[in-house]
């Protein structure tokens, strides 16, 4: 609380300072970091409590007021917005600001086809962009190179959250190419592009896991192995479950990347993110995901959501995000995760998380990636049943 007050007295916005001080926050002692992010979350809570009638009524029902929140132990008291409400057709009630101040609508569409729409005001867009770039710099340290995007461009699907988040990285690179065009992915073109960039750029492959897996399947089928660069990163974002329901194994994915793309395990990095929140949790070089340090993950017992599970135990993820201003950033997801303990060789404070799976009773799974997977399968099927062209 003291740090927050000092920053405010100096005329600074504590959340903006936090967003641009990722490295310093990761270097703080645990208790100090928890205290700082707690004060940011309580300030955000007060804003939504005062400006959002829907959220306020949930608070009144639980008899939670800004005055009743004093310490990190009180974080569990914050009313949570179930994530499915972002899909509801009356999701206007989630807004803490007028629609007039909303600058950006982003969406994610899972297997049900019903989009989850999140609306961000200018202040929230500022926060999201600052936070995402800071985390990309912290974990990827990218400022040059070439990005082979195994996904469609924002031009083709402008509002898709996953593509938008990945596309932000393109600004850090020297060049990039989107390899999925008009629902078509031609792996030969991707391979050719990598060879055009060879010896000119560090080549990075970026996209949802299943699409990178699709590229590897092509390499496997044609018995080709490539050797990417020592600074290459294979960056994944999106679900690990295919439209068909088949789960991609992370271990198998890593081992195939190593065999067919010629990279080391520390070069393969996954991002956990969701369109409804500004959080990104990114793999470090040991494959451990670190949560944005100003955001708090509270892992709940799915049978009793008022209770947190212990470290290392699987539970339902609740996100407390103080950077969300247009809608409350206090969200109950349908994801099962576990928080991991800090290991001896890990210099960062804050939370580490492992994604386990979507809640079994969840009515749907997947994000934009799962629909992309379905479309590509359908396109391939269409082409495979087409009449052969006879010369």
């Amino acid at each position, binding site marked *: 609380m003291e740090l927050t007050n000092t920053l405010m007295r100096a005329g600074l916005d504590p959340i903006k300072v936090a967003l641009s001080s990722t490295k310093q926050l990761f270097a703080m002692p645990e208790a100090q970091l928890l205290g700082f992010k707690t004060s940011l979350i309580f300030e955000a809570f007060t804003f939504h409590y005062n400006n959002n009638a829907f959220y306020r009524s949930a608070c009144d029902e639980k008899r939670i007021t800004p005055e009743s929140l004093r310490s990190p132990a009180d974080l569990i008291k914050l009313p949570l917005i179930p994530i499915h409400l972002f899909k509801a057709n*009356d999701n206007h009630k989630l807004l803490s600001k007028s629609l007039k101040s909303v600058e950006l*609508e982003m969406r994610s569409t899972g297997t049900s086809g*019903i989009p989850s*729409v999140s609306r961000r005001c200018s202040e929230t867009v500022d926060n999201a962009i600052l936070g995402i770039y800071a985390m990309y710099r912290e974990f990827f340290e990218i400022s040059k190179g070439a990005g082979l995007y195994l996904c469609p461009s924002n031009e083709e699907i402008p509002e898709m959250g996953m593509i938008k988040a990945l596309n932000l990285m393109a600004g850090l690179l020297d060049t990039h190419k989107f390899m999925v065009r008009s629902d078509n992915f031609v792996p030969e073109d991707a391979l050719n592009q990598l060879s055009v960039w060879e010896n000119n750029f560090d080549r990075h492959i970026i996209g949802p896991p299943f699409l990178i897996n699709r590229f590897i399947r092509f390499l496997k089928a044609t018995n080709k192995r490539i050797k990417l660069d020592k600074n290459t990163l294979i960056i994944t974002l999106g679900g690990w479950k295919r439209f068909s329901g088949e789960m991609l194994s992370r271990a198998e994915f890593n081992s195939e990347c190593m065999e067919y793309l010629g990279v080391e395990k520390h070069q393969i990095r996954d991002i956990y993110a969701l369109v409804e929140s500004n959080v990104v949790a990114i793999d470090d070089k040991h494959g451990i995901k670190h949560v944005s340090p100003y955001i708090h993950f509270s892992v709940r017992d799915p049978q009793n959501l008022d209770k947190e599970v212990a470290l290392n135990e699987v539970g339902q993820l609740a996100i407390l995000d103080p950077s969300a201003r247009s809608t409350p950033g206090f969200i109950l997801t349908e994801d099962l995760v576990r928080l991991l303990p800090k290991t001896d060789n890990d210099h960062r404070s804050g939370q580490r998380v492992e994604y386990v799976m979507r809640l079994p009773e969840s009515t749907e799974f997947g994000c934009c990636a799962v629909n992309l997977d379905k*479309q590509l399968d359908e396109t391939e099927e269409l082409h495979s049943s087409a009449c052969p062209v006879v010369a």
Partner: protein
Amino acid sequence: MYNDIIVDNFSAPNYVGDLETADHEIEIGNPVCGDRIKVQLLISDSQISKAVFRAWGCATSLATANVFCRSIEGQSITTISKRCTQEISSMLGELEPSQRHCLDILSELHSKLVSQLDIGVA
């Protein structure tokens, strides 16, 4: 970013609802972005006596559904079928490029209504 028509209709969607037994239903959608609108109608004496909707998607498409229902309720089917493109376009006010796909949604709602009720445009 959003004009007053969109803000008002999104923020107070008075025509959201379901009918247990509807005389007609119109449903349109875009499988890629997920925008979906379902309109239910009660019709008596060639007049739309009630129109309600459920919609999923961007704020402008939700507002579009409300604008459409408000504009057809109490109107005769013949009157609605005579609306010209310009009249339909003006119903949503000035839109930004990223919102203009909702003009297509509004036109599609009109043409589905007209074709479903089997009335040609005069």
